[in-house]
């Protein structure tokens, strides 16, 4: 037993997560103590706690110098993981803010505590470099998310979507776990770098490696909701409490991508396997985008529409990812940057949906008629969010798409670029249809003004600004993406 190897550096590396545990404990404590209206304060505490964790992270946990494997190789303290962790913390903080006035959730300390647990899980997904750690982190995120999805006690839909999410997720993650176990068995390592080394020796035949890759892809495909692992997405997104839909569609998906990047680029691309699964991944990228956009056209519920649109966005991110063979760093940085823009934009869209649903009690697109007259500011922000999702400059979504197209073309995947371009067009159509309803169609008789409470104001203004800033003054953020990407290799 060797306790002398405890080092300050180890703890500094995971300081944000330690802070998060403290915040969760504080929230649980408040849940017991607070009474009445002031229970809502737990949302602020969670949001501030998550932001504090972020600033503490920037202050103390910023990876300096070469990336290091810490805690016996279970985590890798590098810039890529760090960037993703910061994204999760922000997404979590925003989620806490936009939960505060949701009926049946906003005043429940247990909700915030489980939300924080999910963020902890994601943070470890971002830095895990060992199959054990990775699996555990994925499950921490997933199980917390299943619980959060079913949290609304008085909603049949919430419970149903929770169970669907649970069943789909449990099966896919078990398939992935089987893949992990084989990977461990055939290489003798659980560490991703150890696996890469062992696979490099070439003892595992091509077919087996592909089989393992497919099994692992099942689990990750579920998290990022890529075709054909996306079937749960619309149902769960529709039924879940909207803040959780926002959280799952942004942070959880992003966490899936960091795992995808780490496992497939680090562990599974060192020998002949790379040629094997890459075409599959390309096909998945193309089909995912197309299916997502096409089916979105036919939706009448805004949450389902955004669900399919989020499937399409996963496809775009995969497009960046599949270019990694010839453009490793640019591919990863393009994907990272796209995810940043996507998180900001999608959270904004969902925040708007929550505010609107509070006033109108509906998520049907037709009920959005005349929203611009009920609240011009809400409508303007929705315009910003949807145009960014559609990739219109100078908003964040455009720049994200631009880098993806660039890296795809650079890698010589012209057909994929064309698929992406055509899809961008289809997407614009259904976003515009929604905006038409918002701006053009007359409001129902007697529709009242929509009031926006303080936490939502904070969240939405911050997100609107970031959508614009990410599209114009993108330098620092893109720098982070690049630094992250280069720290991976």
């Amino acid at each position, binding site marked *: 037993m060797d306790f002398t190897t405890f080092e300050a550096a180890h703890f500094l590396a995971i300081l944000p997560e330690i802070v998060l545990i403290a915040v969760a404990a504080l929230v649980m404590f408040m849940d017991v103590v607070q009474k009445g209206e002031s229970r809502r304060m737990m949302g602020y505490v969670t949001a501030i706690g998550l932001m504090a964790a972020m600033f503490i992270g920037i202050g103390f946990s910023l990876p300096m110098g070469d990336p290091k494997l810490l805690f016996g190789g279970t985590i890798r303290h590098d810039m890529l993981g760090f960037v993703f962790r910061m994204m999760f913390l922000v997404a979590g903080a925003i989620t806490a803010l936009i939960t505060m006035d949701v009926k049946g959730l906003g005043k429940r300390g247990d909700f915030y505590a489980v939300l924080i647990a999910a963020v902890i899980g994601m943070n470890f997904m971002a830095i895990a470099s060992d199959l054990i750690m990775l699996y555990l982190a994925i499950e921490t995120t997933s199980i917390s998310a299943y619980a959060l999805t079913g949290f609304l006690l008085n909603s049949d839909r919430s419970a149903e979507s929770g169970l669907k999410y649970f*069943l789909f997720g449990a099966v896919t993650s078990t398939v992935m776990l089987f893949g992990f176990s084989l990977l461990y068995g055939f290489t003798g390592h659980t560490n991703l770098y150890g696996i890469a080394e062992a696979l490099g020796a070439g003892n595992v035949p091509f077919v087996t490696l592909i089989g393992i890759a497919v099994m692992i892809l099942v689990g990750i495909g579920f998290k990022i909701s890529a075709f054909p692992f996306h*079937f749960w997405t619309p149902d769960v997104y529709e039924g879940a409490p909207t803040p959780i839909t926002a959280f799952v569609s942004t942070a959880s998906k992003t966490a899936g991508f960091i795992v995808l990047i780490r496992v497939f680029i680090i562990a599974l691309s060192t020998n002949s396997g790379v040629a094997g699964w890459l075409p599959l991944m390309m096909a998945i990228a193309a089909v995912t985008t197309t299916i997502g956009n096409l089916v979105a056209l036919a939706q009448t519920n805004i949450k389902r529409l955004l669900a399919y649109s989020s499937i399409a966005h996963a496809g775009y991110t995969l497009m960046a990812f599949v270019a990694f063979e010839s453009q490793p760093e640019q591919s990863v940085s393009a994907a990272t940057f796209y995810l940043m823009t996507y998180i900001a934009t999608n959270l904004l869209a969902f925040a708007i949906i929550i505010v609107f649903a509070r006033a109108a009690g509906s998520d049907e697109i037709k009920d959005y008629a005349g929203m611009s007259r009920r609240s011009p500011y809400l409508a303007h922000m929705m315009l910003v969010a949807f145009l960014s999702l559609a990739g219109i400059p100078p908003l964040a979504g455009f720049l994200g798409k631009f880098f993806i197209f660039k890296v795809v073309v650079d890698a010589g995947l012209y057909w994929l670029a064309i698929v992406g371009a055509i899809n961008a067009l289809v997407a614009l159509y259904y976003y*515009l249809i929604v905006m038409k309803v918002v701006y*053009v169609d007359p409001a129902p008789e007697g529709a009242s003004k929509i009031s926006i409470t303080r936490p939502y104001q904070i969240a939405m203004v911050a997100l609107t600004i970031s959508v614009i800033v990410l599209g114009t003054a993108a330098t620092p953020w893109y720098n982070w993406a690049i630094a992250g990407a280069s720290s991976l290799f």
Partner: protein
Amino acid sequence: MNTTLLIWLIPVPPLISFLLIVLFANRTKALSHSIALTSVIMSWIMSWIVVFSAFAKGYYYGENPFHSYIHWLPTGTTYLDMGVAVDNLNSILLFFVPLCIVAIFLYSIGYSNFGKPVHDHDLPGTPPHHGVDPLYSRFFAFLSLFAGAMLTLTVADNLLLLFVGWEVMGLCSYLLIGFWYGREYDDPKATPPRIAAIKAFLTTRVADVMMLLGIAYLYSQAGTLNFHDIFFNEELMYDLTHNPSMIAGFTVANLIGLLLFIGTVGKSAQFPLHVWLPDAMEGPTPVSAMIHAAAMVSAGIYMIIRMFPIISAGGSHGPNPTMEIITFIGAFTALFGATIAIAQYDVKRVLAYSTISQLGFMVAALGMGAYVAATFHLMTHAFFKALLFMGSGSIIHGVEHGMHDVHEHIDPQDMRNMGGLKSRMPITYWTFLIGGLALSGFPFVTAGFWSKDEILGDAWAHHHYIVFTVLCIAAFLTAYYTMRQISLTFYGEPRTKSAEHAHENNWTMTLPLVVLSFFAIFAGFIGVHGEFPVLGQLFGNNPFEHWLVGALPKDMQPKPFTFTWFPVIMSIAVALGGLLVGYLVYGRNPLKSADQVDPVKKLLGPLWTMLENKYYVDEFYYAAFVKPAHWIGETLTFKIIDRGIIDGIIHFVASFFWKAGVGSAAVEQVAVDAPPDRMADGVRWTGDAMKYIQTGRIQNYLMYTVIAIALIGVLFGFLVAG
């Protein structure tokens, strides 16, 4: 102040004005238009300072423009720079764009009935009839954003910033075309503004995504998007113009050029993506002027002129598939648009098709390598087309006033309901006449003559005889329909009471017309061919050409073509001929009543019907794209594939296995603890199989996924084994 800093500031005032109006000034109408107008005047002044200091510096070349940039995005080892530059080419745009914009803004004030109170009958989102437009402030906000985007595009030193301006303009066109979103028509064939807006945005987006691919391709090949860095890097240009691309017969530059050109086809409404532009007339008239003259369509032409070194692949007159395609589309569009224009009754639609046709002239010119002529026509066209649009708006406005005076309900845009406006709206008449003559190319005194002549002369001099012929026919038709329009509108006796009671508009609407008339005449003299007898020498030996070619690297600069008389005579002949025929048909015998059948209709018969219906292109698109897209989106993907096929397959395979006698006993004994009533269940179930079109069931989802995994596995198994 430093000139380069000034360039940065040019697009800023309108953008700030947009924010100010949206956030703070949207309650006060006077404040809104003051802010907007002030902002564009500031931009205009700054632009002209920059332009004239550029002129004053003399013939500095594109090699050494006013340039300023910042490192914007790090891309691995290098930076993606964002910056602004003014060289010989965009200085021309900076000369005319802000001027037109100021005119349009001023005009908008009167056009929106400023000064009258808001009337209860005027609903937001419909054209104002009695009072000021209820969404007056919003209109100026969007217009400011539009102006800001156009100026951004103009001063951009790289393709990406240009594209940003380009797309924001697309958005503004969407917002502004659909500005009167509340408007509905009884006629089912008419396109209401909200549909027109989506149509415009989507059609141009079709092209924009292709353009974005072109940009991405260029960026991946060149590593930069800065115009100057690409064009003046000989090594890079050599690679681009000589390396083959993945499409046979196209070099890399050809393919990039083609993709970028598709962007222009959308933005500048070339065939086959022209369909949005006539419907864009549904917007308020200042918007039409903005789109058709000052900003949007000019942007499309500007972009390909800007990318000329890539498109022409280094040389101007060699065999080049991209250039041939461009020439063909341009010439075809010129003729196509002109033929449709002769059979339209809507005063704005005639101008819309005329715009399509004139843009075709520019595109064809560029395709033939007539770099200077294309730019020249772009500038003169902006002046006289803005003039004509605002003139038509003034006419419509006048007729509408008449309508309200006599309480008549007619279509105020239909030329059949006009007539005799010459004496009632004299300023509008004279300015419209000047604009119309310029559009027709009335010899020697109008700007349109010189620029069109330049295009025809270039086509002739470089032996593009077919294109020359096509363009001559188009020019003839142009003159003809212009005269038709003028005759129907201004001559004869009023055919409706409204026209009888029409009267001239206030000074904010007429002043811009007068100013633009000046330029519609005199702007042409700077580009008179140097060898033109007498006039060439008189006007300084074609200063425009000398100035403009400086934007290109030295070895690419086109030489002035040799002057010959034939094209000049032709262009005089078609212009005068067209005007004369138009006058003989419509001017000498004006229509007697609004119901009278157009005299040419009898002559042309079914051909006329076809022209009136714009060759049924819209209908064709609807049948060929819109309907199938709906079908794919809703029926195929959603209903059939998502709900039907997957479940259907499961159940179909089920019944198949069942009937094929894999049978209950065998399967169940092996796999399942078999219930005795399995058989009965199975039969019932098989009968219902195709009815079970269900989802929302988690196990079905799981099944799809697992089947997909199995299929992927089997596929790979075969691939590896085989």
